[in-house]
């Protein structure tokens, strides 16, 4: 009587995975990625905005009676925000702290308050003094352009449909108004 063939499987056997091909792929891939990667991630500050915000900016430009917001930067006062609405002027100042640095958090809150008062305004005029470093100008622009928190939103009207919607943009249109001054 023939004995039935039985496959002998040793359940306790160990085997070593051959990692050499995997390593070979990685050795090729890593230099390729190292060469083509940009380690300094660069962005730009630009004015490409959602259509609703663009329309609101256009509407503001067509309305000469709209409130105007001018932001002055100087080493003495810090940031001086002048709001001109219907012939009346109001000045808000955010100064430097004890370490001679701008209080950016206070500045951001100030911009938020102004935006809540004037939700139809999207443009600010920036007037930095000659000695203000570029990085400080960028910081002020950052605080003014967009709300840092996603929960803070401002109403904006869609001019085409007439519907109210919200946006986190505050003053995305920054114009350097003293560029052409003598």
């Amino acid at each position, binding site marked *: 009587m023939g004995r039935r063939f039985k496959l002998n499987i040793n359940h306790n056997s160990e085997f070593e995975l051959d*990692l*050499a091909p*995997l*390593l070979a792929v*990685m*050795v090729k*891939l*890593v230099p390729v*990625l*190292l060469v*083509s*990667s*940009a*380690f*300094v*991630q*660069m*962005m*730009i*500050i*630009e*004015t*490409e905005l959602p259509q609703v915000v663009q329309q609101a900016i256009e509407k503001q430009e067509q309305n000469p009676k709209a409130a105007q917001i001018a932001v002055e*930067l100087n080493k003495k006062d810090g940031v001086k925000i002048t709001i001109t609405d219907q012939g009346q002027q109001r000045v808000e100042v955010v100064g430097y702290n004890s370490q001679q640095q701008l209080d950016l958090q206070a500045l951001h809150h100030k911009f938020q308050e102004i935006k809540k008062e004037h939700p139809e305004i999207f443009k600010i005029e920036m007037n*930095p*003094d*000659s*000695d*203000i*470093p*570029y*990085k400080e*100008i*960028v*910081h002020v*622009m*950052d605080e003014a*352009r*967009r709300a*840092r928190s996603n929960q803070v939103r401002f109403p904006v009207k869609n001019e085409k449909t007439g519907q109210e919607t919200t946006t986190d943009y505050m003053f995305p249109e920054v114009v*350097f108004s*003293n*560029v*052409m001054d003598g």
Partner: protein
Amino acid sequence: MRRKRYEIDIKKNQTFGLNITSMTDMFTILLVFLLQIYSTNDVQIDLAEGVRLPASISDKNPVDGIKISLSMKELKFDKIKLANVQNNSIEQTAIDPNDSNFVKPLFDQLQKYNKENEKSAKAGKILFQADQELPYSTLRKVLYTASMAGFPHLKMVTVVGN
């Protein structure tokens, strides 16, 4: 009887297996890191030499445009050096004697670009890289000259950060 000299037993045909597990681990970590930072932008901007860009919270990817850079040492149009920068200011020889904000070599270069690239000149996009420590008076000269040459829209290049 003479004593036998001690000899180290070397097996010349011996082979050994290199343990590459730890090396594979290292490469895996490196690969994940590189894949994570790998930029997929359409436009790659080369950081101009000697320019320390300011940090911004802006999350807009760069667009194509004319590249102007202003470092603590020089003003460049793409890779062409236009003027030296000394003591945080563009050298006096490059400034128009009748207009203190007008940078003549930059204006000439932008005009030349306008003539050569009529289509892209209409879009008027300038990618401006400037050193974060430069004062506004120096930047203003570039902004003013660019506006005069028909490029009022400037894209300020920044690095990601707070």
